[in-house]
């Protein structure tokens, strides 16, 4: 089954509301969001595993369950503690059997921005404060330090997971009913948002891919008369044309290879492994390493 053929579920009768037992089970399962983390789809497999109990209840025929599981393997990256917000939203849409492109667009558009909020709240606020409070207790030899740390951090994490799941599931169930009368238009609008967000993701996550070529280009006199080395940094020139140009081109390349040449993701991963390693042998990609082949330029980060 090719993923672009997935437009509607066969059985479009809305399923019954998920019971609290299933919702709770999924809250706990959401802890495994990153258990199969990888660079290609990031949290996709963990995401699917987390919502599976719900999907199995909602899609009673096997064909629909397969369709739902297939599209829930899309690239996904969000904050691991805030993910239940996306889960509640998507489950309410699955339950109403909305058309699949809408669910896909809403998922990526909700998941991506949440990552930043979660980090700001948790890793930059709660954890530093908690660590500041409890680390000195530990250094003074008190076992209370680590215990308090665990209670505060894990407590906040689980409270967030629970609260967001119920809040967004209930909200979603109410909101989704209104979408159905203009389903086709809603799908297009959701895709617009999705594509817009993918554009943002390319710039936001792609920045790690850049050239590290820095060519020594003689010396020049500084203001105080001393001679300083001059380097030509190729990436700087590229950035003057369009910043993050390589990530943009690579993404479009993947899109065209998948769409026009029928490349599978595995083939593309192999391709990037070759591009990455061959590039590092000749010192093309940025990073802290020594190229295998001596090259007449420096590799910079």
């Amino acid at each position, binding site marked *: 089954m090719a*993923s672009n053929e997935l437009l509607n579920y066969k059985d479009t009768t809305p399923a019954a509301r998920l019971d609290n037992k299933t919702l709770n089970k999924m809250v706990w399962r959401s802890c495994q969001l*990153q*258990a199969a*983390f*990888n*660079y*290609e789809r*990031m949290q996709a*497999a963990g995401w*699917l595993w987390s919502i599976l109990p719900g999907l*199995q209840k909602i899609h009673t025929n096997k064909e629909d369950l*397969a369709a739902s*599981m*297939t599209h829930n*393997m*899309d690239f996904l990256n969000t904050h*691991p503690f805030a993910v239940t917000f996306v889960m509640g939203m998507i489950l309410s849409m699955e339950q109403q059997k909305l058309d699949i492109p809408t669910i896909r667009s809403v998922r990526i*558009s909700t998941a*991506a921005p*949440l*990552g930043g909020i979660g*980090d*700001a709240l948790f890793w930059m606020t709660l*954890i530093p404060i908690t660590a500041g409070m*409890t680390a000195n207790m*530990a*250094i003074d030899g*008190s*076992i209370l330090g*680590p215990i308090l*740390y*665990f209670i505060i951090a*894990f407590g906040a994490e689980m409270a967030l997971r629970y609260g967001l799941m119920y809040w967004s599931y209930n909200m979603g169930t109410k909101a989704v009913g209104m979408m159905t009368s203009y389903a086709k238009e809603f799908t297009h*609008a959701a*895709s*617009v948002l999705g*594509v*817009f*967000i*993918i*554009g943002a993701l*390319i*710039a*936001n996550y792609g920045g790690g891919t850049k050239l590290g070529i820095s060519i020594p280009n003689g010396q020049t006199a500084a203001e105080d008369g001393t001679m300083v080395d001059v380097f030509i940094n190729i990436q700087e020139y590229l950035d003057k044309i369009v*910043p993050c140009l390589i990530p*943009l081109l690579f993404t479009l390349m*993947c*899109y065209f290879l998948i*769409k026009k040449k029928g490349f599978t993701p595995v083939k593309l991963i192999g391709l*990037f492994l070759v*591009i*990455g*390693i061959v590039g*590092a042998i000749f010192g093309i990609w*940025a*990073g*802290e*390493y020594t*190229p*295998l082949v001596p090259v007449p330029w420096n590799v910079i980060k």
Partner: protein
Amino acid sequence: MDFNIVECVLLAILTFFFAIDQFSLTEIVYRPIIACPIIGLVLGDMETGLVVGGTYELMMIGNMPVGGAQPPNAVLGGIVAMIFAVKANMDTNAALGACMIFATFGQYVVTLTFTIMSGLMAKADKAAEEANPKGITNVLNISMLILGSLFAVITVLAYVGGTAMSETLQSLSDNASWLMGGLSAAGAMMRFVGFGILLKIMFANDMWGYLLAGFALALVFGNIAATASAALILVAFIGIMLALMDFKTSSLTKNAGNGGMSDGI
């Protein structure tokens, strides 16, 4: 350093657990302030564990795993610091200094694992197409097994090799740096495959402008210090406006096409 097989096995098991915990399970227990005292318990010196753990935790405040960045690996760093502090009788700061090469190496192991595990996604896709929940569970289990085992092996090496391992690791990481550089470059590129798949699903020919506009806005917000950390949510706000406009326009067109009548069925 004296070798004790029970200690070594217990350490390997703990490492296996912490390695998985750093990305799933509780995502809290692996933090040095909790992990180090537990390792201290195994090595028979919990006091040192509290001190090393507390100090390491404070060191990490400015070094959080945000935005998908991989900081030097706290799991390997903490465990090796404990081995050095307890078994080699180094003082806290010396042990924390000496463990850093392991923390850096741990970062390589994570990059390597995340790169290899991209290959498992084909298996997950197949399980999804067959509506086979067990297949997805297997993918998760295999991934955790790979990550946990790699970390456990390195810990055993550190336990057996002691401080001498630091030098071996340093020279290994110097000699194979091109391979590690290449793998992390390739790892960073894998996400473009995920983006490509998403585009294949959602993209229609009238959407070029939106794709480029989202790209441009994320660059603008991302390069302004005040908005950089909120870039994606700010872009999403503008995206919501665009989606609402699109919805409005297309539903108006629909009504006009029907001669102003509601879509009677």
